[in-house]
Every structure is written in structure tokens, then in C-alpha cells.
């Protein structure tokens, strides 16, 4: 154990020193990518450079990234089916908490929508909006609110797949005039990106939520659900 720590320490020291050396000796780059991005912005269909990079210039990366996210859920689904679980453990069913959630969650929805909408011209975008959406779902579960439609496997899977399928479909459809994959026509780029982002937001939100849900939960603590607000003897 100590040997292992010493070894790890030496290795990390070496790596850190090497990295420091690399940082110090770094040459100044010739290529100026930010300038290229700025020059291409008018054709991108959005006004915010990061969204342009994520969903237009380098949208192929984003496509694969969403696939990674979906993959994690697929594995979680597979493992869940391999070892069926006891009923899912919900959260804390507290009336005050519920009341707070009833106000907080619509606000979160509006903020998620705002982040999605904002992505076109200021910081924000599908991923951020999706995470807020997922957080809303997680809060809902932690507050013990059940949503029946989340138990509908077909619906959930359709929701999971929606974003990626739309993205892929649009990427293929735009090829019809004979241009490469994912080449949005400049005139419609903004609309197409918005459609992609909208579906991606829903799918990312659902994906992150599923990753939380599909962890094998433990069975309900009997003492938790029933004796919520019972007076203590």
C-alpha cells in the first residue's frame, strides 16, 4: 500500500514536472482559429460563436458526444434488465417540500427553456438546458413525486432517442442537394439548429435523469414513507 502511494507520488511528480516544462516551452501558434470562427460566423445561422462551433462547424463531434451519453443509458438499461430491482426508492414525501417544488419546478422549466433559446445569441444551449431539465426531474424524484409516464419504457426510450435521431436525420436530409453530411443551407441553418437543439434538450434531460433513475435503488425504507410527519412519542 505504501509502496503504491510512493510509486504514485513519484509518477505524478514526474508527470507534473513534465507538464510544467511543456507549458513553459510552448511555442506561439501560427494558426488563428478564433479568427476563422469569427469570419465564418455570418454563415453559421447563429450569433453565438460557441453554439456555432458546437452545432455547425464541429457538429459531428456533438453528434458523437450525444451518442456517448445515450450509450451510458443503454448500459444502465441492460444492467437493470439483467438484475431486476425492487421498487424504486423515491425521495422525501414532505408537504412543505412539495409546496416549494411546485413553485421551483415551473421556474426551472422556464429557465431551461430560456437557456435553450439563449443559445442562439448568448451563452446557453442544448446541453445546459438539458442539464437544468434533468435537475428538475431529479428534484421531482427526490421530493417523492411520481410521474407515471417515466415508467412507460417505450415512451422513455422514444424520448431518449428523439434528439439523436433528429440530429442524424437532419444531417442526412441536408445532403440531398449533393453536399457533405451536416451541411446546413445557410438560409435555414438557424431554424435547423434550433430544431436540433430543442430535441437535443429534451433527450439530454431525459438521458441524465435516466442515469440517475437507473442506478439500482434500494427498497423503500418503511419508516420513511409512512411516518413522515407523525408525532414522536
Amino acid at each position, binding site marked *: 500500500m505504501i509502496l503504491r502511494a510512493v510509486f504514485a507520488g513519484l509518477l505524478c511528480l514526474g508527470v507534473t514536472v513534465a507538464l510544467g516544462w511543456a507549458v513553459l516551452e510552448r511555442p506561439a501558434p501560427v494558426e488563428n482559429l478564433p479568427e476563422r470562427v469569427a469570419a465564418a460566423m455570418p454563415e453559421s445561422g447563429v450569433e453565438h460563436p*460557441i453554439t456555432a462551433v458546437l452545432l455547425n462547424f464541429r457538429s459531428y463531434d456533438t453528434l458523437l458526444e450525444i451518442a456517448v451519453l445515450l450509450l451510458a443509458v443503454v448500459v444502465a438499461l441492460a444492467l437493470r434488465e439483467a438484475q431486476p430491482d425492487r421498487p424504486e426508492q423515491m425521495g422525501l414525501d414532505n408537504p412543505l417540500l412539495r409546496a416549494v417544488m411546485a413553485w421551483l419546478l415551473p421556474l426551472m422549466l422556464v429557465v431551461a427553456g430560456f*437557456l435553450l433559446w439563449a443559445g442562439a445569441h448568448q*451563452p*446557453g*444551449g442544448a*446541453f*445546459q438546458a438539458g*442539464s*437544468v431539465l*434533468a*435537475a428538475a426531474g*431529479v428534484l421531482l424524484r*427526490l421530493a417523492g413525486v411520481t410521474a407515471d409516464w417515466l415508467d412507460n419504457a417505450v415512451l422513455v426510450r422514444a424520448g431518449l432517442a428523439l434528439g439523436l435521431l433528429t440530429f442524424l436525420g437532419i444531417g442526412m436530409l441536408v445532403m440531398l442537394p449533393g453536399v457533405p453530411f451536416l451541411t446546413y443551407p445557410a438560409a435555414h441553418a438557424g431554424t435547423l439548429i434550433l430544431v436540433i437543439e430543442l430535441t437535443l434538450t429534451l433527450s439530454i434531460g431525459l438521458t*441524465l435523469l435516466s*442515469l*440517475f433513475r437507473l*442506478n*439500482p435503488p*434500494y427498497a423503500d425504507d418503511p419508516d420513511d414513507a409512512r411516518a413522515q410527519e407523525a408525532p414522536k412519542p
Partner: protein
Amino acid sequence: MPWLDLLLGFTLCVTAGLALIARDMFRAVIMFIVFGLLMAVAWVRLQAPDIALAEAAIGAGLTGVLLLDTLGYLRRPFGSRVDNPEDRS
């Protein structure tokens, strides 16, 4: 000198170090959540509000909850010897 950035960078390293050396799992996870929060601030200092948004929602939010949930799953007697400092003596 950018004192704010220096202090932030230093705190980032300290929280990361503490998260890694903590013997109590829960302490480590809380340190990690704090680390995520500080990362969001660091992204702000790097003029990257997009990443700060993502980090605030993910690093400080969802990852933390996932880890806490896992800790609950492990159901270990987490640290904390006493609840009341009065009883400590």
C-alpha cells in the same frame, strides 16, 4: 498580479487535494461538490460563461447528487463520532 485568480487557483488545488486525501467518503464527496462550484467560478474568470453554466448544472449539481446517492447506497457508518460537542469531552 491577479490575486483573485491566484487565490481561486490555489483553492481549487486545495479542495481537490482534500477531496482526494479525505478518509471519510462523505467528506470527500462534499469537497468534490465544492470543487465543482469553484470550477464554475474558474470558468467565469476564464471568460467562458457557457462552460460555467454547464459546470454549475453538472459539476455542482447532478454529479454531486449521483455521488451522494451512491454514498447512500453504500450505507456505511459515515464518520461523525458525535452529534453534540458537549458529549465529546
